[in-house]
């Protein structure tokens, strides 16, 4: 909306600066319509003002304050400009590096997180027996809050919990799902995917609704197997949907895992499940280092900006292909 509104301001500003370098009163040729043109000139500004003010006042200005704050010190140096000290501290902090590494891991796990709802949606679309039940069941976790989901899985994944009891029954030794630093992050991401894939599933189903059924019929007539149908017919027709799900899943993973991390592992064990968000919270609330937290959130903002722009670029290119 803003992009649109700002662009429509352009002609006005161009009009006032583009003419002869005259002071405030309008240039002679426009004299006849002066009153009318001034009103015309002001109207868009007045109409846009609420939206622009809200965005500048409630979005950009706090953002600028926050970024500015990240260049000040904590504790004894409160309020002093310290340049890039906070950012150097971040780079030197193994915890923050773990958090960034985990972000990288999330990006790597993204295809899995997209493939699961995609595959399940395909099965539902192909009307496997009981597909109506599955549609409801798959969506169900999406309505639970992360705290509830985390609490449920805390019980299931506890060292003496049911999952380990089941594994024990199969003769496999217990796994400390949330206490082993090599396993915990995968457990948390797995639970996150479980809790959120319902939303992506719905998007996929919507995409399937636009699928040309004659193509599928043609494939069936040609004797294509199920994997062949999926790979050569369904995936190409759904490329835009898939890309959309990629973008939204990525954003979900980067911005809304705090609740799960907080409830399931508290960033542990050994700090192995730290994510930038959690780091920001710890530094601000527990370590009383708001400026450092501010620097970390600026870093997170930049990561999101880069990832977001890259994904918009991909989406746009996909749009052109259509």
């Amino acid at each position, binding site marked *: 909306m803003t992009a649109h509104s700002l662009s429509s301001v352009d002609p006005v500003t161009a009009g006032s600066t583009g003419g002869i370098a005259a002071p405030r009163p309008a240039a002679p040729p426009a004299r006849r319509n002066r009153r009318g043109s001034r009103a015309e000139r002001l109207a868009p500004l007045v109409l846009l003002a609420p939206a622009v003010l809200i965005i500048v006042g409630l979005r950009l200005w706090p*953002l600028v304050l926050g970024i500015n704050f990240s260049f*000040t010190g904590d504790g004894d140096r409160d309020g002093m400009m310290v340049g890039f000290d906070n950012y150097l501290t971040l780079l030197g902090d193994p915890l923050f590096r773990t958090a960034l590494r985990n972000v990288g891991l999330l990006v790597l796990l993204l295809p899995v997180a997209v493939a699961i709802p995609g595959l399940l949606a395909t099965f539902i679309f192909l009307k496997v027996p009981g597909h109506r039940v599955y549609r409801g069941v798959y969506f169900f976790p999406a309505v639970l809050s992360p705290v509830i989901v985390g609490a449920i899985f805390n019980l299931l994944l506890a060292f003496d919990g049911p999952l380990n009891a089941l594994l024990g029954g199969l003769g496999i030794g217990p796994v400390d799902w949330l206490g082993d630093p090599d396993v915990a992050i995968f457990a948390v991401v797995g639970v996150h995917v479980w809790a959120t894939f319902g939303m992506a599933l719905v998007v996929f189903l919507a995409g399937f609704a636009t699928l040309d059924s004659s193509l599928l019929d043609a494939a069936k007539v040609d004797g294509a197997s199920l994997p062949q149908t999926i790979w050569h017919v369904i995936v190409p027709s759904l490329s835009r949907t898939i890309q959309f799900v990629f973008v939204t899943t990525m954003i979900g993973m980067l911005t809304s895992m705090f609740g799960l991390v907080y409830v399931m592992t508290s960033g*542990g064990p050994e700090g192995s499940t730290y994510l930038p968000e959690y780091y920001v919270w710890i530094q601000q609330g527990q370590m009383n280092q708001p400026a450092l937290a501010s620097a970390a959130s600026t870093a997170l903002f930049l990561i999101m900006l880069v990832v977001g722009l890259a994904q918009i670029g991909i989406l746009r290119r996909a749009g052109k292909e259509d």
Partner: protein
Amino acid sequence: MKQRTPWTATLVAALALTAAGCGSASGPGNSSGGSSDKLVVWDWKSGDAKAAGYVQKAKADFAKKHPGVNVEFVAQPFDQYYTLLGAAIQSGKGPDVILFNGGGQIRDRADALAPLDSYVADDKQRLAGWDAFTKDGKIFAEPVTLQGHPIYYNKDLYQKAGLNPDAPARTWDDFVKNCGAVTQKTGAKCFSLGNKEGIGIQFWLSALGSAVLTPQEYDDWIAGKRNWSSPDVKKIFELWKQAGDSGLNTDGANSTAMFNDAFAAFNSGKAANIIGLMSDVGHWKDFAEFLTPEKVGVMQAPLVNPAAKPSLAYDGGIGYAVAKWTKDPKVASDLVRSLTSTDALKAFYLDGGAIASDTTIDTAEGGPAVKTIVSAVKTGKPALHVALSSKTIDLMGRLSQQLLSGSITVDEVLQQLAASDKTG
């Protein structure tokens, strides 16, 4: 796409403006808090039904001194408490009276508080636990409860194992031997341990420290002269690792939350001992749902080093402080004094089971655990972990998890802790 240009330009301009640096966002912090006829108190206790009687008594006491002043209690969720408080401090306005945990939490924020020395002199004798609220010789809060780390044990399990429940082990070797007997007879582990948040090691350090360090080493530690390369300090962390390696702890300690999973395990008899707390949660009264007070004992830390002198580790637990931006510090500190009056604290002890800072309260009906704790308060010393900065404590939590999983050696742990302790 052309449309996005102004956006990008705005952003770049904003970033450039910022990088140039134009003052702090935190501001000078000079604006005042509540008005003079109203005091706002922030805490995480007053919403709790168990604290209702306490708040009522304190309010009544204050109303006698200042009938015209309104007091408003704002109970914040504890999870978010210091985050919210941090925001209030940054903006330089907020509550007049603030509840704090003793130790690092209040010391880190002492800049925002008014020293209370001149107002609380009359209470110095009556209350215990001042050290946790003192920084650079100045008192910043009056203690409400005492918080410490007694070693609780389940007398039932000791009895079932054929041990005398009223004569717990005095030395570490005997203690481990008793644990072996308990495990063999009842299947219960020695310690119920929850170290998911890294809290287990804090309790361990403070509960067993006095049985390992010599009195001199102990006092030096509290005074800030911490020798991380001393063999006795090393011994504490070695014992932690040994306890983990030799299976003394309940399973999956690194994924078990201290609150309340570890306490639940102790309650349900899955372990014979637990290093618990004295106030708030995880104390004798908390166990009472399953373990009646006479079944819970408190033992002195079993002696590891013959040169050590075991004592109860405790500090001021929570206490009320006065913000420096309050209009009239005298009135605010009178409220703090009401909040620590004997009547109010007695209600807190009776309803919540907390060990109150007031040493004159009669605790005779509390059962053997309370009796042992209260008698040990006189000879007790500040807890070792409370003397560390929150940064070092956080690091220690993570390192302790690594010790349990075996991915680090005790020497490396001590090295990292020493480095963190030096930089504060």
